[in-house]
């Protein structure tokens, strides 16, 4: 660890996060397109100024800001306030201009290559210039970022990131976790306003918002999947997107994903691809949940989806699904698919 980092760690030990630090202003602006986020320093009770044209500068907040902040401005500029240590001046920087980040927020596409291992990010934390595209999902944020971050955009999403702090950068036992993001609808109360952050609590009282956000993002991925041609055995961009989103989304996606897969308006070929992907994602979803989703898909109105579900169950060696497959076989009207299901049942029975 560099001396700078060591110093930062020492300084951070005095930092706590409490409910008074964050507030947000969701008052519609003339442009009608943005959210202003205000970061409050509890010690000085100063606010990070946001004007009608957004954040142009940040005054020193009594010399200390107890956590890093990302602030979006009306210019589309994202300013990052670095952790303010007594020995280093507080500063902000214009780090916007990365079109990718905007895309990430519009669309939950997070290329896996961007997710992990970007060592630059840790440096960014201490240099206060953080290309936002590098922020998302970077594992090092979990190690190096001891506070709470809000990212606000004009794209209707607010991302809150807090950290786990389980390694050498651990500086607090109050803060528990991870990356999470919270989405809100323009007219809804912002979770951080109605339910200010509490020390040691990770699950904000905003689960509905978060789930809604995830569902929206999943639907965008499914919609984009309709533009793609799928081929057996070939990893699709759709599957990569799905995995990237799911990895960043926590455990709630299984139920939502299953629901989307069952819905009629979703393209059959995309559903079939999603089901194939689910059958392969043994590290992301519990086996029982994956089998449940696939079994339900056996009742789809699309032969393509039913086929994918049957193949997926066989691929999982899901002998516990033989009964469901037998029912699907009995009710199958497509004689060619019926024959294929029969072969899969025989395989699972070891015949």
């Amino acid at each position, binding site marked *: 660890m560099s001396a700078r980092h060591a110093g930062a760690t020492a300084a951070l030990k005095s930092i706590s996060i409490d409910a008074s630090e964050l507030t947000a202003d969701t008052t519609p602006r003339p442009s009608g397109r943005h959210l202003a986020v205000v970061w409050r320093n509890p010690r000085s009770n100063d606010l990070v100024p946001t004007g009608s044209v957004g954040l142009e500068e940040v005054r020193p907040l009594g010399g200390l800001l107890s956590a890093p902040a990302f602030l979006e401005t009306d210019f589309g500029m994202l300013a990052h306030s670095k952790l303010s240590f007594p020995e280093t001046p507080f500063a902000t920087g214009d780090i916007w201009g990365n079109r990718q980040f905007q895309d990430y927020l519009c669309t939950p596409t997070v290329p896996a290559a961007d997710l992990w291992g970007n060592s630059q990010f840790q440096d960014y934390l201490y240099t206060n210039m953080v290309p936002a595209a590098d922020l998302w999902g970077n594992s090092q944020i979990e190690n190096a970022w001891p506070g709470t971050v809000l990212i606000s955009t004009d794209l209707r999403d607010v991302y809150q990131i807090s950290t786990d702090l389980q390694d050498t950068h651990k500086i607090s036992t109050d803060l528990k976790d991870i990356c999470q993001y919270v989405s809100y609808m323009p007219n809804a109360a912002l979770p951080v306003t109605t339910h200010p952050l509490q020390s040691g609590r990770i699950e904000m009282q905003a689960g509905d918002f978060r789930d809604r956000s995830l569902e929206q993002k999943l639907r965008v991925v499914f919609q984009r999947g309709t533009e793609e041609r799928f081929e057996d055995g070939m990893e699709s961009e759709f599957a990569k997107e799905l995995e990237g989103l799911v990895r960043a989304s926590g455990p709630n996606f299984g139920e939502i994903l299953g629901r989307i897969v069952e819905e009629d308006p979703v393209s059959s070929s995309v559903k079939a691809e999603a089901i194939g992907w689910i059958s392969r994602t043994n590290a992301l979803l519990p086996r029982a949940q994956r089998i449940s989703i696939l079994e339900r898909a056996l009742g789809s109105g699309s032969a393509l989806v039913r086929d994918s579900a049957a193949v997926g169950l066989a691929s999982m060696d899901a002998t516990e699904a033989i009964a469901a497959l037998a029912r699907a076989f009995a009710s199958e009207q497509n004689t060619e698919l019926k024959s*294929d299901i029969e*072969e899969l049942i025989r395989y699972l029975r070891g015949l």
Partner: protein
Amino acid sequence: MSRLLIKVQKRLWDRQQPAFVDPGDICADGLIDLNVKDNRLSVWEVAEDNANLERVLTALAANCTYTSKIDYILFDSGVPLKLGLAIKSTPGGTPDSKANETWHRDLIELSGKKLLAFALAAFENASRERCQEHKVVNMLKGAIERNEIEQSKLSEVLLAKLQVQQS
């Protein structure tokens, strides 16, 4: 007579077509399996006695990023000739160099009309087949043991899956 093989999604080539498809026609989704590039369509020649079928399927599987079933259609090699389509021997792009050199063909100089005519003829004449994933896995393992495919050309995911299953 030998036959030609094209990898497809079997469900899109089911004889049981949606109600809106007239007899003698095919649903448009099936056309996406005819992955034409540079007005060429990749096909594989399979001997009448299927002697090289497993090797061709293994070559196709080795070209994938993960193990999966392989759906394919097999049709008489005279089908494209009857339609006046030209066939040319060209090297395939799989990790099996022998298969690439020996059995890969291209239907060349395809126009839209020719492609549709070919799709209709193939639909009428083809048998729809499936090689299930567990068979594909065994075929790949055997091919690796026999050094028929170049491991260096296999995807990491595919190789990892095979290695896991071997252990």
